[in-house]
C-alpha cells in the first residue's frame, strides 16, 4: 500500500513532465489546422446547438431553460466519459514509455487528467456563450462548481487507475466500458431533465453518473445541488479509491509486464 501511495506522490512530483506531455497531446491533434484546439470548442458548439434545437422541440421545452441545461450537461458528460474511456487506455497507450522509462506509473494518469481538463476548458467556453446569450446569471452559486470539479477529477483518478490496470491485463475491458458509457449517456439525465421522468425512479438515485453530473451542473445553472447528490459522490469517491488502491497496490508492479 505504501509503495502505491509512493507511486502516486512520485507522479505528482513529475508535474512538469506530464504537464508538458498533456499539452503536447492536445496540440498534436490539432497541429497545422487553422483553428487549432478551438476545433474542440467549435464541434461542441455545433453539437449543442443542433441537439438543443431538436430535443427542445421534441420535448416541447422552453429554449431559454433547456439550452443552458443541455450545454452544461453535455460538456460535463464529455469530461466524465472522456476520463473513463481514456482511462482504460492509460497504461496501454503509454506502453512504449513504460517499458523504457523508470517513472512512477501514476505520471501517465496525471497526464490523462490534465489533457482532459484542457479539453474541458475549451468546451466550457460554449457554456459561457450560451449563458450570456440567454442572460443566465448563476451568481455566486457558480463557485460551488469548483469543489465539484475537484472531486470529479479525484474520481477520474481512481477510475483511470483501476480501469487502466484491469484493461492492461484483460483487453476486452476497454470495449465493455465503451459500451457501458454509451448506454449510461442515455440513462443519465443529460439531454432529458430529471423531472421529465414520471415518478422519481431508482434509475436516478442508483445512477452514480447522475450525481456526478448534478453536483457540477446545478451550480452552473445557479442552483444549489441537493445534499444527497454530494453525499452520493463522496461515497463513490471513498469506495472507488479504496478499491482502486487495493488493486493498484497488489498489481501495479505487473503493469510493465502486461503492456
Amino acid at each position, binding site marked *: 500500500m505504501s509503495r502505491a501511495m509512493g507511486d502516486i506522490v512520485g507522479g505528482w512530483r*513529475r508535474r*512538469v*513532465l506530464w504537464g*508538458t*506531455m498533456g499539452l*503536447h497531446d492536445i*496540440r*498534436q491533434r490539432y*497541429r*497545422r489546422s487553422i483553428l487549432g484546439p478551438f476545433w474542440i470548442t467549435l464541434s461542441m458548439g455545433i453539437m449543442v446547438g443542433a441537439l438543443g434545437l431538436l430535443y427542445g422541440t421534441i420535448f416541447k421545452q422552453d429554449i431559454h431553460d433547456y439550452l443552458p441545461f443541455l450545454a452544461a450537461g453535455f460538456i460535463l458528460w464529455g469530461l466524465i466519459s472522456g476520463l473513463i474511456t481514456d482511462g482504460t487506455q492509460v497504461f496501454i497507450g503509454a506502453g*512504449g*514509455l*513504460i*517499458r*523504457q*522509462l*523508470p517513472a512512477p506509473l501514476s505520471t501517465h494518469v496525471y497526464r490523462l487528467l490534465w489533457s482532459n481538463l484542457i479539453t474541458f476548458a475549451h468546451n466550457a467556453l460554449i457554456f459561457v456563450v450560451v449563458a450570456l446569450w440567454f442572460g443566465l446569471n448563476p451568481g455566486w452559486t457558480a463557485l460551488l462548481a469548483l469543489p465539484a470539479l475537484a472531486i470529479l477529477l479525484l474520481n477520474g483518478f481512481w477510475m483511470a487507475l483501476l480501469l487502466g490496470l484491469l484493461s492492461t*491485463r*484483460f*483487453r*476486452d*475491458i476497454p470495449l*465493455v466500458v465503451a459500451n457501458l458509457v454509451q448506454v449510461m449517456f442515455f440513462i443519465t439525465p443529460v439531454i432529458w431533465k430529471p423531472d421529465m421522468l414520471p415518478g422519481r425512479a431508482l434509475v436516478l438515485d442508483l445512477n452514480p453518473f447522475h450525481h456526478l453530473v448534478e453536483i457540477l451542473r446545478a451550480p452552473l445553472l445557479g442552483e444549489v445541488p441537493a445534499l444527497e447528490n454530494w453525499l452520493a459522490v463522496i461515497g463513490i469517491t471513498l469506495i472507488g479509491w479504496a478499491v482502486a488502491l487495493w488493486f493498484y497496490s497488489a498489481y501495479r*508492479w505487473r503493469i*510493465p*509486464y*502486461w503492456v
Partner: protein
Amino acid sequence: MAEIQLDKVSVAFPIYNASARSLKKRLVGAALGGRIQSEAGPSVVQALDDVTLHFRHGDRVGLVGHNGAGKTTLLRVLAGIYEPGAGTARVEGQVAPLFDISLGMDQESTGYENIVLRGLFLGMSKAEVEARMDEIAEFTELGSFLDLPIRTYSAGMQMRLAFAVSTSIHPDILLLDEGISAGDAAFIEKANRRLQEFTGKASIIVLASHSERLVKQMCNTAVLMDHGRVIGVGPTEGVLRQYLGRTGHG
C-alpha cells in the same frame, strides 16, 4: 556512492495471447471449473533465473550473451522498470537508462521543444535543461534547424538531437543498450569523444552489447548470460573468451 546488489532475482513473463487476455475465456474457464483455462493457461518465459550480481563504484560492466539471453530484461530490472517476481534488487544512485534513443520525440514539435521534452523524460528539471540548452544546441550542429519541427529532419539529424540531450545528463549509474551510434563519420568521432567524456563521469556503467570490441574497450568486468542465467562473471578478457568459446568463433 552508487551500488547495485541483485540477490537471487528472477523475472518471468506470462505470455498472454488474445485468448488468454480475453475476459470471456476467463469467465468460461471459471464456469467450467478451470478446465479450459488449464488447457490454454498462459505459457511463461523465464527471462531471468536466479541472478545474483554485485556492482560497485567504478565498475564498467559489459553484458554479453545471445539474443534472448536476458540482457535487456536485466537492464530493465536495474532501471527499476520491472520489479522482480522473486529475489531482491537494490540499486543506489541516480539511474539513467539509454535504451531507445528516440524515445519521447514529438515529430510535430521543434528541435528546441524536443530538447526540453526529452530532458524532462530523462529526469532533468526544466531549469536544468534550459541551463544546458546552449551546450546541447551547439553539440547537435543543427543551427537554425532547431526552430523547425523535427519531422523535417533526416534520421541522422534526429539521432544527433537525441544523442546530444541524452548525453547531457550526469547520472550515477548509466545503463546502455546496444546500438548507440549517430550520424556521419565526422559526427561519430565527435560522438565517441563525448560518449567517453560522458561515461567517464558515471560511477557505474552497465552496457549490453554484441560487439566484443566495444565491450573490451569500455568495460573492466563482464557478465555472460544464457537463457536468463548468469554463467560467467569476471574480468572482461576471461569472460569474453568463454563467450567466444561457446559460440565457436574464437
